[in-house]
């Protein structure tokens, strides 16, 4: 087994890793659908979405590795950190194919993440970090499609049969408490906003809600009340689901250090 790496974490690096890790872990969960989606066509679509997100995460991790400056590469950052050094939102590490979750959870999560990413990419377009702005410009096109695809499914299921409606509403009840974290500011957000690196978390809340409202209306979904609970994945404090996810995601790189295609 290969030992974990320790990073020298600045506020800038934490800000980047939150975005990169959210994409990376979301992609990992979507990849679990490969070969299991309800129909072949959506199986390929989910794999495509996951690979888009993985590509975005790779670009961000490669850039983060360069900024960190200890000679780590994107693979080391993706696969050789300890759990507490991942800064993804808790939402994206929750199971999608087990623990009561299903295809409705999957599409709703894709909607939540895409509706968060789109205004984020737009905000990053004017970042003082030119590389980050370039990554954001390319990623925004992909995210626009993710949003259209997920919104379509959420409406289709929410406004579909009794069974699909019941499942979509259950998925919303499960996911909603984890949405608060997406807009929870801390000192990393304050530093990023102040220095012109990127928007603070709370600035994305209103655009996110604006995207969701018409989708929820078409999907016959009621926006739940604000949650009193705020998860803490972006601070490195994860749910019990993160350990097993990392064990699977990291196994190849830990067993075959430096392995490449």
């Amino acid at each position, binding site marked *: 087994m290969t030992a974990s790496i320790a990073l020298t974490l600045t506020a800038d690096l934490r800000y980047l890793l939150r975005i990169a890790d959210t994409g990376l872990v979301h992609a990992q969960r979507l990849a679990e659908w490969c070969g299991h989606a309800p*129909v*072949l*066509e*959506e199986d*390929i*679509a989910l794999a*495509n979405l996951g690979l888009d997100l993985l590509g975005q995460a790779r670009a961000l991790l490669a850039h983060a590795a360069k900024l960190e400056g200890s000679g780590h590469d994107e693979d080391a950052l993706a696969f050789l950190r300890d759990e507490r050094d991942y800064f993804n939102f808790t939402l994206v590490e929750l199971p999608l194919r087990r623990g009561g979750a299903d295809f409705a959870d999957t599409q709703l999560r894709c909607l939540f993440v895409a509706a968060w990413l789109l205004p984020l990419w737009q905000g990053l377009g004017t970042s003082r970090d030119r590389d980050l702005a370039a990554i954001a410009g390319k990623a925004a096109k992909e995210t626009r*499609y993710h949003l*259209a*695809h997920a919104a*379509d499914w959420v409406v*289709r299921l929410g406004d579909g049969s009794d069974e699909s409606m019941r499942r979509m509403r259950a998925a919303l009840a499960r996911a909603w408490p984890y949405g608060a974290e997406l807009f929870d500011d801390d000192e990393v957000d304050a530093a990023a906003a102040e220095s012109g690196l990127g928007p603070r978390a709370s600035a994305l809340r209103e655009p996110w809600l604006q995207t969701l409202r018409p989708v929820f209306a078409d999907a016959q979904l009621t926006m739940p009340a604000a949650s009193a609970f705020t998860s803490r994945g972006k601070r490195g404090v994860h749910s019990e689901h993160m350990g097993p996810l990392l064990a699977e995601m990291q196994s190849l790189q830990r067993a075959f250090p430096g392995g490449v295609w």
Partner: protein
Amino acid sequence: MNPSNEWPLWEVFVRAKAGLDHKHCGSLHAPDAQAAVQLARDVYTRRQEGTSVWVVRSNQIVASDPGDKAMLFDPMEDKVYRHPTFYVLPLAVDHL
């Protein structure tokens, strides 16, 4: 799965680039037209194959009967005069 519960079948046509025609490239199952276009994009243009897709319900396509092949198409075998290969073109239009 009960076949009657399956999504309807759609034929997919992809245009490789502006100016070219849409070419038939395969089929897929989708619940409606909008989903068919999205899924066609995901299934058939993953490797930059296209700039535009058309989908059409497979059951809307009217096809010739394979049993009529002899009657419909074999008579063309000896109509070589229908190929415009017996004209001498002026040089100016040589690359028409």
